[in-house]
Each structure stands twice: as structure tokens, then as C-alpha cells.
């Protein structure tokens, strides 16, 4: 029992060490030479206003460049509501009919 606790503490500390090391290796927040700042970002920042006529760039990406994704996101919400109604409402009605 005592040995097991020691083992758990050892595993937790080593996992924490690995994770903190990974965080320390991350590129700085918002730096212009990050690997995530590629030609896609440049395209969005430079051309979003011209191509969509929208000031808010997040809306431009969500509802214009990625409109197809947003459509299926709403369908996911629709499915969630449908599933809840099927699970909670139809069950009652079937019980009454028996």
C-alpha cells in the first residue's frame, strides 16, 4: 500500500515534469514567426475584408470561408435536440399506449 502510493507520486511527478517541459518548448504567444503563422493566416488577414466585405474576421471565416463546416455544425445541434426529444418524449408516449 505504502509502496503503491510512492509509485503513484513518482508517476505523477514525472508526468508533470514532461508536461511542463513541453509547455516550456512552445513558441511564444502571438509572435510573428510562429509556425502557425503561415500563408493561410496572411490570406485571411490581408484579403478577408476585400473578399467578404465583413469587418469581423471571425464571422468572415465562420460564415464565408468555412460556411460548409458551420452548416454541419448546426445540423449537429439539430441532431442533439432531436436525440433528447426522442429519448425523453417518445418514450413517455409509448409507455402510455401499452
Amino acid at each position, binding site marked *: 500500500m505504502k509502496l503503491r502510493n510512492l509509485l503513484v507520486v513518482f508517476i505523477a511527478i514525472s508526468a508533470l515534469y514532461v508536461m511542463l517541459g513541453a509547455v516550456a518548448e512552445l513558441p511564444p504567444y502571438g509572435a510573428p514567426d510562429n509556425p502557425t503563422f503561415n500563408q493561410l493566416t496572411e490570406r485571411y488577414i490581408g484579403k478577408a475584408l476585400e*473578399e467578404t466585405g465583413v469587418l469581423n474576421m471571425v464571422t468572415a471565416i*465562420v460564415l464565408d470561408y468555412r460556411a460548409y463546416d458551420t*452548416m454541419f455544425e448546426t445540423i449537429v445541434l439539430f441532431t442533439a435536440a432531436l436525440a433528447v426529444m426522442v429519448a425523453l418524449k417518445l418514450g413517455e408516449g409509448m409507455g402510455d399506449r401499452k
Partner: protein
Amino acid sequence: MKIRDLILKRITTLVLPFIQVYGFYVIFHGQISPGGSFAGGIIVALGFIAYATAFGTEEGRAVLPEKVTISAESYGTLWYALLGMVGIVKGVPFLANKLAGIDLGVPGTISSGGLIALLGIGVGIRVASTMVTLFFTMLEEEV
């Protein structure tokens, strides 16, 4: 009526119009200010949820019948897909905006962005009706 209920109901009636107006503001101004249709739809739904929580489920259902929420839910999705068909009719990809030759308007005004404003209204109505449907379904369900 208990005194606690009285305070709750009065405060809810006072605050509710502001919640709703802010929610619709966030939906309609998604193109020019932070926010957007998802957050605005959830705020609109929270207004109805607050009303139903303070005044009881029957009162809430009287304001927003089940038929209305379910048709809003279905026709919101249909509205989005129909707006996407504009591109196909014009001979360009699905959900195209500038490619379909739609006038983008002056940036910074509510009418800017072509289809984006209309798509945003559809998504906002969808999200609001989904939240309200989930709330009423869970509340009315008998354990």
C-alpha cells in the same frame, strides 16, 4: 405568492427586454462587431429560459409553444441550405458569396457582407430554438 417570488418576477420582467434586445443586437451585428450568431442565439434563448424559470413552465410554454420552437429548428437549417443553393443556381460552388456575384455593400454597415448576414440570422434562430427545446424537454420530463 411568496415575497421571494414577487422579487424574482419583478426583476425578471425588468431585465428581460434588455437581454432580448442585446441578444438580437449580437446576432444582427455579427459582421461588424465581436459576437456572432452562436453567442447571440444563446443569449436570446437565455431570455426565454429566465422567463420560464421565474414564471413556471406553463407560462413559458404559452409564450413559446412547442410548434414554434420545432418549426424554427427545422426551417433554420432549411434556410441555411436554401441560401447555399444561390451559389448552385448561379453556377458556382455551394454557399459561395462573392463568387455568386452578390453585392457586398459598404464594410461597416449592417447590410454589408452579402449572404453572411442572412446566414447569421438563420444560425442564431437555430441555436436559440435548440437551447429552448432542450430546456423545456428536460424540465417537462417526468422522472
